[in-house]
């Protein structure tokens, strides 16, 4: 990881010195362990703040929407796919970007780390595939694969799909993973069980909209939940309002979601919100053979008509 960091800093410093970009978006160390924050470097000196480790799970594409400058951006596999989606949706121009591609080996889940040491974490040290966690309750070493974010363990696109420069050789992609096991489990439920499942799943939701704010797809100037003329959905934490919000938000991400996990990572109450987008991702793959953000040359399925599009639901 440290090699990545040096390379990222070097590339960023070079880009800013040569005035190829006005700013570089990356990560800097957060004030608490495991909480790296987005960082904008505007001078070559500032690039020394840029870091890279296994806590860079935030999706930086979120900070590109409608920007006018020339931007250097550090991008993992999922970030790059969201950048592609942003370009296709005219939220940024390809020419404005210099994409520093990072072959990703997965981001760790801060909840799993905290669980491993029963609560507080003072420091997390990475050494290859081993992660040492230091906390008041003692030290513990875990294998990185055991504490990965769920979306990272199911990821099939670790290497950036577009980039101008890579910080390292591409990593091997994961194969033989069943990404949709959780979705199939819900599909198999009967109606009552589904209702009960969703109600229980969303019961802790406090409607803080952290999932929406962390999501690079959610860039509408006024979100449907914030509109009040007409008011599409109640603002309370009524179970029906909660479900309406989560169902609708998921549908807005259909054919666009890259399963970057930013929503689930941001949720303060730990709701597995990815289950909704995962279902839509599965449908897009099965019905349209589509995975978001793989290429700039194909339009998304909800954007084009093809005679072979499935239409069995129309009577």
């Amino acid at each position, binding site marked *: 990881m440290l090699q990545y960091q040096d390379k990222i800093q070097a590339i960023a410093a070079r880009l800013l010195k040569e005035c190829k970009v006005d700013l570089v978006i990356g990560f800097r160390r957060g004030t608490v362990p495991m909480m790296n924050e987005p960082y904008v470097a505007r001078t070559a000196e500032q690039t020394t703040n840029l870091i890279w480790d296994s806590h860079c799970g935030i999706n930086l594409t979120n900070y590109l929407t409608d920007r006018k400058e020339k931007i250097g951006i550090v991008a993992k596999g999922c970030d790059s796919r969201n950048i592609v989606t942003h370009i296709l949706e005219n939220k940024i121009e390809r020419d404005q970007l210099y994409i520093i591609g990072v072959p990703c080996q997965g981001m760790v889940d801060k909840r799993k780390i905290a669980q491993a040491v029963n609560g507080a974490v003072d420091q997390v040290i990475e050494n290859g595939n081993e992660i040492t966690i230091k906390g008041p309750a003692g030290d513990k070493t875990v294998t990185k694969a055991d504490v990965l974010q769920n979306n990272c363990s199911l990821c099939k696109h670790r290497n950036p799909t577009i980039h101008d420069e890579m910080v390292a050789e591409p990593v091997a992609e994961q194969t033989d993973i069943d990404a949709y096991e959780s979705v199939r489990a819900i599909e198999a439920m009967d*109606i009552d069980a589904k*209702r009960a499942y969703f109600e229980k799943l969303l019961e802790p939701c406090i409607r803080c909209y952290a999932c929406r704010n962390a999501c690079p797809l959610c860039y509408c100037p006024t979100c449907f939940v914030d509109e009040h003329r007409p008011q599409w959905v*109640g603002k309370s934490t009524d179970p*029906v309002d909660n479900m309406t919000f989560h*169902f609708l938000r998921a549908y807005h991400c259909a054919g666009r979601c890259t399963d970057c996990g930013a929503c689930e990572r941001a949720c303060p109450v730990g709701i597995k919100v990815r289950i909704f987008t995962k279902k839509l991702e599965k449908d897009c793959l099965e019905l349209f053979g589509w995975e978001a953000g793989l290429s700039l040359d194909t339009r998304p399925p909800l954007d084009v008509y093809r005679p072979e599009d499935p239409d069995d*639901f*129309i*009577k």
Partner: protein
Amino acid sequence: MGIEPGRLQFSWISSAESTKFVDVVNQVTDAIKALGPNRYLVKNQAKVA
């Protein structure tokens, strides 16, 4: 997502197919009546004294 099959229906009807429109509306109405009132995703209104 927990909505009964049949409560949500899609049809493609041209503006020239008035009879099809009538048929579809009748069919949908009958099907929905058979299902009864929807209780799912309906918010209970606060009771006002």
